[in-house]
């Protein structure tokens, strides 16, 4: 079971959904903070949901307020990187670049991409956590296995 979990995680890493930051999060999890990772990720979901909504609204405006978009995306990027959401983060970076050059289409396209990645990540991570909860407290050792 533990091995399965580890494999799951490894897959996530391999596929680029998560990066080392996630490991850091897990390292921070201890007896004092037994569900730290989940807590943070949950916060992330909430936060990003809000941001995505804001961005969508902003993207519907015309003309686009690029600086605002960039600002919003910056936040999104910040939180994504904090939890190690690698793919989502790179989409954010790309989005910001489009904003910088004023590429409205590029922004919209990237944003769609970003939403997709985000959705995928969320699903996978959820599965991961569910599995982890079933197994029991996930120690750091799990990771190394």
């Amino acid at each position, binding site marked *: 079971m533990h091995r399965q979990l580890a494999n799951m995680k490894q897959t996530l890493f391999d596929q680029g959904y998560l990066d080392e*930051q996630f490991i*850091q*999060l897990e*390292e*921070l999890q201890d007896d*004092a*903070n037994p569900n*730290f990772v989940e*807590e*943070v990720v949950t*916060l*992330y979901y*909430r*936060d990003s949901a809000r941001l995505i909504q804001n961005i969508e609204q902003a993207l519907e405006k015309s003309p686009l307020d690029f600086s605002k978009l960039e*600002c919003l995306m*910056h*936040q999104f*990027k*910040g*939180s994504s*990187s*904090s*939890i*190690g959401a690698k793919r989502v983060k790179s989409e954010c970076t790309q989005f910001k670049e489009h904003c910088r050059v004023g590429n409205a289409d590029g922004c919209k396209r990237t944003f769609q991409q970003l939403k997709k990645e985000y959705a995928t990540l969320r699903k996978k991570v959820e599965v991961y956590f569910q599995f982890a909860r079933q197994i029991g407290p996930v120690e750091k050792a799990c990771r190394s296995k």
Partner: protein
Amino acid sequence: MTLEKIMSDGEGYDDFPAGLRVLAVDDNPTCLKLLETLLRKCQYHVTTTSQARMALKMLRENKDRFDLVISDVHMPDMDGFKLLELVGLEMDLPVIMLSANGDPKLVMKGITHGACDYLVKPVRIEELRNIWQHVIRKKRTEPKNQNGSADQGNDNQSSGEGNGPQADRNGKCNRKRKDEEDFSEDNENENEDPAASKKPRVVWSIELHRKFVAAVNQLGIEKAVPKRILDLMNVEGLTRENVASHLQKYRLYLKRISSVASQQANMVAALGVKDSHFMRIAPFEGLGDFRTFSGQGRLGSAALSHYTTGGMFGRLNTPNVNLHNLSPSTLIQPNHGQSLTNSISALGKVHPALASTNQSQSLFQGIPSSLELDQLQQSKCGTGMSSFNAMDNSRLRNKFSDPGAAINSSSNIFNSSTNMMLQGSYQQTMSGGGFGDQSSQNMASLNMDSFNVGVNSSSSLLDSATIQSSTTQPASLLSTEPFHSQQLPMSTTGNNGFSNDPYLQKNAIDTSSTTMSLPLEDSREMHYQQGLVGDVQNISHIPSQRWGEQGQSYGHGSTATFGSLNAHVPVSGLSHSLDQDSGIINEKMGVFMNGRLGGGASTLMLQNGNEKLASESRAMANDSFLLEQQKIQSVFAPRSYDPLDAMMNAMIKREQDETIANCDFGFDDYSFESGM
């Protein structure tokens, strides 16, 4: 406990950085949560808020509530940079910026706005583990200012003489000393600067330091606690914290010196203040003595104060010069001190050292040491090193008659040692080069006479030594600047034994090793601590060599001097500054100082590289310190001019060190002495 308390007491340090109180500001909840957890993992006390305004409110409510602020750059209610500025202005707390954007331009903006650091998200825990450094750094620079202002005020009253050195010592001296010293102006000017800083900082002027040392000596170094010291000092505006932090530094200094002390003591004695070089060294030594004598602490403090205050230490160079002035004539007369100090101040910071030396001399004589020292220093400084030579050895002797006492009084050991050195050593030191040879005889005189003797003869040595150091390494020795020049005079006078030139050459090494001046270093250490390192080396070099040559001559005087100087001569301290490199040299020098060196040794030491010397001098310095005590009292046997050398070196080094190292202890100023 508050950070400051931790720092000042020196206790509770073990726990640190645990318990660091951090305020984290980030509008992004995910990041904030992560940050909070990371910080908690580092065992810090964390308070979080997602709003900058809230953060400001919390900070304003209680300025002492937090030690550090970490803030995100992009925030909706307030720009992170703005918050950074406000915090810096109002609370003067270290602020670390945080952002997902690692663009160098943005980082630059953060730094220019005053951020202590700029972290890029995602933040790793390793980075957070080091943030406490910013806090310490900031706190360390603060108290100094505060002390300065306090000191100056007080010192002014006590003895004008000390002023000179103070200024030099500490650019921060806010006080306007109305010393008779002319060079007080330097201080004044420098004082202005601190005034501009937000918080009043205490500048440990020589006067203040002298008082401090006196108080410490009175209480006994083991029993000296900040509160009681504060009471004894009876200085207005000085807080227990100021004293505590100063005490901490002082203790470190003592440790350093103790190794070099012996050397320095000799030096001091030998130097008899003749040469400024010696003076510097001597002072160091004298200081060393001071320490030893600390009981008496009169001198020490006074002298030391000079030294320390002088900030000259950093400049040792100057002090050296001052030494000259100090020694010869001023021994008894405050003039010396003054000249010294003056010269020192002129030099830069050496004055204090010199002045102290002078003072030490006076101390020895039982003259109201502090005053005398101050005067000496002052006079010495003023007149420039050369005067030292002029100084009568006899005078030195007289002064030294009670070097111990005198020195002791100066808790400022540095000062005293310097003074002592100056007094006795000046003569010797002055000769610098001369010490080597003469030192033996002179040195003897220093003890009581040894200083004179050593000084006289040694003066040539010293001079040579000094000069050597200075010459060879004009830069190195005096890295602090004047110091070298000062030294030069000494050496030029007659390299009696100075083959110091080689030393000087070494000086080059000095720069790196600063330790060279071992014997001097002792005293210099004091100064050097400041970082003269570079300079010190040069200085140290010279002395070292001399010792070799002078061996005996120094022995007498220097021994005595060193003894005292040891405490004083931060040879070890210098070593410090020099750090490793110098350490070695210092030690070596110290060895010389102790008279053990015997000519060859010293040279070796020097040669070996400042490093060695540094270390040696350090060791020696410490030894000399002890030796000094004995010596001084007993007109010690010709120790070999090691002490002188050591002193010189120390002095040199100190200066060097001074510049190089930042003596926490405030001996930075001393660098003059030790670091020469």
